[in-house]
């Protein structure tokens, strides 16, 4: 469904990621793992269209989106949830969700689905986004992205700033989404969590793909175990 072909992107003419090839199939959950500064966010921003690419292509469902600005990629079906969330702080939770469906009106079914997934949000509908806790803000960011009924949901470091228990709950929700058929691309530093949901994973190091494979395969890989799973 998503094909990233030979993608390079960066800042001030310096590539941060170089010649990246990533493919995500329909209904699949794919993780991008790697340490801080490996280029995960740069890759995601480039796929979402927030950062122009230097080389390569981004193709969704056979449509080349490389030259399209971020808002048109969003409308094409790419929903990107950045680590900083970028919610609308002075609006209520409900308005934030409604904007997720822009330019349409939020439909009841999607809203119910989202509230089923995150019951906490339902209780806090009328609260301003800025007053929510970190975990609730993360849920809202994911929920807002789901309101557009995206083809692909991209989660960048979804556990940033969350207590381990909340992070666990968040990943349970992602697993549930996958079960419902959502296609996921997740960047995560907490590799065990990421691999628990993902079918496949790519290991990103210094802006390049070092390794790729099925999650179980990577979990057994001695290099991955040493570098990311804290196993000697």
């Amino acid at each position: 469904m998503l094909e990233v072909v030979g993608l390079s992107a960066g800042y001030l003419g310096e590539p941060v990621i170089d010649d990246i090839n990533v493919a995500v199939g329909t209904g699949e959950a794919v993780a991008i793992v790697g340490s801080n500064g490996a280029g995960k966010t740069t890759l995601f921003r480039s796929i979402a269209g927030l950062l122009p690419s230097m080389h390569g292509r981004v193709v969704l469902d056979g449509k080349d989106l490389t030259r399209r600005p971020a808002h048109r990629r969003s409308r094409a079906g790419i929903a990107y949830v950045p680590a900083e969330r970028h919610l609308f702080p002075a609006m209520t939770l409900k308005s934030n969700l409604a904007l997720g469906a822009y330019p349409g009106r939020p439909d009841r079914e999607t809203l119910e689905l989202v509230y089923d997934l995150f019951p906490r949000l339902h209780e806090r509908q009328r609260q301003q986004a800025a007053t929510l806790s970190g975990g609730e803000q993360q849920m809202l960011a994911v929920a807002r992205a789901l309101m557009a009924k995206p083809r692909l949901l991209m989660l960048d470091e979804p556990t940033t700033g969350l207590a381990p228990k909340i992070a666990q709950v968040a990943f349970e929700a992602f697993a549930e989404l996958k079960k419902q058929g959502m296609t996921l691309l997740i960047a995560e530093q907490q590799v065990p969590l990421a691999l628990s949901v993902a079918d496949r994973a790519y290991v990103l190091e210094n802006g390049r793909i070092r390794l790729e494979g099925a999650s179980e395969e990577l979990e057994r890989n001695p290099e991955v175990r040493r570098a990311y799973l804290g196993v000697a």
Partner: protein
Amino acid sequence: MRAVVLDGIVLGLAFGLLGVGMTLVYGLGGVINLAYGQIVVLAAIVASLLMEDDVATTLAALVGVLAAVGVAVLLDLTLMRPVYRQHGEERILLGLLLTLGAAFVIGGLLTWRYPLGALYINISGEPVSILGVPMAVGSIWASVISLAVGAVLLLFFGLTTFGRGVRSVIQDETGARLVGINPSFVRTVVFALSGALAGIVAITQSMNGPLTVNAGFELTTFALIVTVVGGLGSVAGAFLAGVLLGIVNAVSAHYIGQYITSIILLGAAALTLLIRPRGLLGR
């Protein structure tokens, strides 16, 4: 005193509309439009020229408003493009310089071509008593128009999807792009809206008395003060600030003097910045 306050409210409603036009453009793109008063004047001069040619007042007013919309959109699509490509302080500085330039060009051309240009829409009729104060029919019309426009604005920004989209760009532009909003389109629409408000203020102000060709910078200053006091990007705040400052303006002009009044208004803006930097209703 009561009459002075009512006059202040009439003036304040116009301030409020100007403030909305100014504050939305600033909130969306970081551009302080120093040519805003000149766009008001442009609408006034266009309408007055048409009225001299015996065009019906309503039609002349409408064309005046459309002229203001046209100039605003033109500014956004040409002069403002390099501004939006900049970020942070550079964007604000470049915006100030370019709109100041536009103010001189528009104001200069109009003063040069029509040195005695002025719009005065005289609405005849017996004064109507409001709270025991006889009010000129023109003032009442001006207030009704301003209030109606204000109500439409509040409904538009509160209830419509596009209005919500505008607010979202003000609050988090990246977030807006991620939900599928095109900030550059939103900015153009809001620039057009600010032009329409400028045109409407030209019409309502001229119902109270002549609006002359050299009123531009004074109007810009009023709009700027209202923006500061009301709070960045807040429609309701701009209205509230407009009415309050209108009353302050009228009271101080009546009891102290017109020249001191500008200083008092600027003082109100400075005080707001000191006590409540985000303005009355800003976030």
